[in-house]
């Protein structure tokens, strides 16, 4: 065994269930004895990702790969895609509908928060096809983060 692998289906139709994957993963990481700071980063990054998948992409699939030194999170959806990733990464930028904003979401902090809480993050997106976000959080430090 080199890694543990878990997959979570994210239901895009039920807003109240967003966060189930991060909550479930958190319990597992706790049972593994992962440091609190790592768990915190992983759960925040994943939770923001889940919310994005529900708000913008009608759900998708999350794959978690965990090895003793790192946790990789792959969030894949078949949503409308992101036309300009650089713009989407800017704090405050949001295309969320008003009804979502009225619930307190859509503040444009989702992607910036995911970046802030992961050690590495990469986005692949094709308009009309979907988006895949790759995030990595290192356990016990790992290689230094390239940019802060």
């Amino acid at each position: 065994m080199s890694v543990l692998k878990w997959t979570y289906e994210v239901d895009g139709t039920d807003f109240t269930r967003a966060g189930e994957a991060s909550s479930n993963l958190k319990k597992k990481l706790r049972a593994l004895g992962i440091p609190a700071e790592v768990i915190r980063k992983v759960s925040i990054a994943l939770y923001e990702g889940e919310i994005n998948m529900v708000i913008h992409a009608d759900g998708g699939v999350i794959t978690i790969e965990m090895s003793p030194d790192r946790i990789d999170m792959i969030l894949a959806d078949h949503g409308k895609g992101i036309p300009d990733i650089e713009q989407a990464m800017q704090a405050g930028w949001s295309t969320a509908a008003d009804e979502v904003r009225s619930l307190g979401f859509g503040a444009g902090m989702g992607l910036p928060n995911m970046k802030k809480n992961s050690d590495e993050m990469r986005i692949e997106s094709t308009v009309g096809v979907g988006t895949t976000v790759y995030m990595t959080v290192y356990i016990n430090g790992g290689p230094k983060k390239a940019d802060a």
Partner: protein
Amino acid sequence: MQEFFHSVTLDWDKCKGCINCIKRCPTEAIRVRNKKAYIIAERCIDCGECIRVCPHHAKRATCDSLDILKNYSYTIALPAPSFMAQFNNLEDVDIVLNALIAFGFNEVYEVAKAAEIVSAATRKLMATHDLPRPVISSACPAVTRLIRVRFPGLIDHVLPLHAPIEVAARVAKREAAEKTGLPPEKIGAIFISPCPAKVTATKMPLGTDVSAVDGVVAVSDIYSKLLPLMHHDSIEYMSETGKIGLSWGSSGGECSGLINDNYLAADGIENVIRVLEDLEDEKFRDVDFIELNACSGGCVGGVLNVENPYVAKTKLYRIRKHLPVSLNHLETADLVDGDLDWDTPLEFVPVLKLDENVWEAMMKMEQVEEILQSLEGLDCGSCGAPSCRALAEDVVRGLASIDDCIFRCKNHDDVPAPFRTGGEEKGE
């Protein structure tokens, strides 16, 4: 690791081995083996949920008997704010305080008084912005213990101040020693408690090494003895508490003492856990303070109380209605260093992890997942563990056998005819 003392214990003879308690325990600390429940000491947070739910009254809180008064030359009663809500038609807190003296205590120091001092100290500490927001109350010992074993990421948020009972005991004992000239060991500070977790908190405190509370008597033990001593006439004015102090007895009371609208109060252990989970995911962005009480309704809901928590809450409102806001202030309180601030930091106790070594833990988790796949997933509790996952973890930890699952012994093809019709066959 610290040795674990627990107030919540099991009466072996009364336990029938049913599964009510294992399903309700918030830290999955109870297992049933050979028709008896066992409490896993390092996981128990003394919240008292099992006492509340046990239909056979087999779970109990170990408190001190009233005989403890005999151990001291001078005794101080420390009644909890919620205690004042246990009586019918009580219009004046002084009636209860006088009854405590008539019962045999030499002195009464209201915990509500210390609560007002803690409220003032919290306001001062919050104003410095030294603590990460939101600040989480440390007054409920079951919640503080829950955070310590389950929410390591939130430990920094816990208010590093003693709970009102601890402050009350420290101040009252010092004042009594000065007044009587007796050495501290001859003075007994006895808490009249609604709560088993407070017993644990005095025997094995968090935030300090030794608690100043010398004994904890259950409200339910002293209640009936106090009733005949309660008189309306010729009572001495004793109470020195305002609205804020008494409000601590029910959920939201501690928050209201902060005089700040940016707070949240949750009560009931399940709700508390939900708030802590959300807090860990940083879902609350504009909250300064979070008050959490393990019991529904707050301390009025404590398992050692006698009155219905919601009736008690109403009574508390009624008693405090005409009181001034607060009668105790930091500037005028008789405090010395250490009365308020924790001297020992709260530390994470990882009782839920599978192995010390991450690699080993991962191997064990893989086994857990494999076992889990082979189980029915009904979480029926018949094996003695609260859920299928808990059984799978117990098997991997070597504490249970997969054959404990009753469904593995059953023949699933043997379904009686009336139950055989599935969804798609309906209406045929």
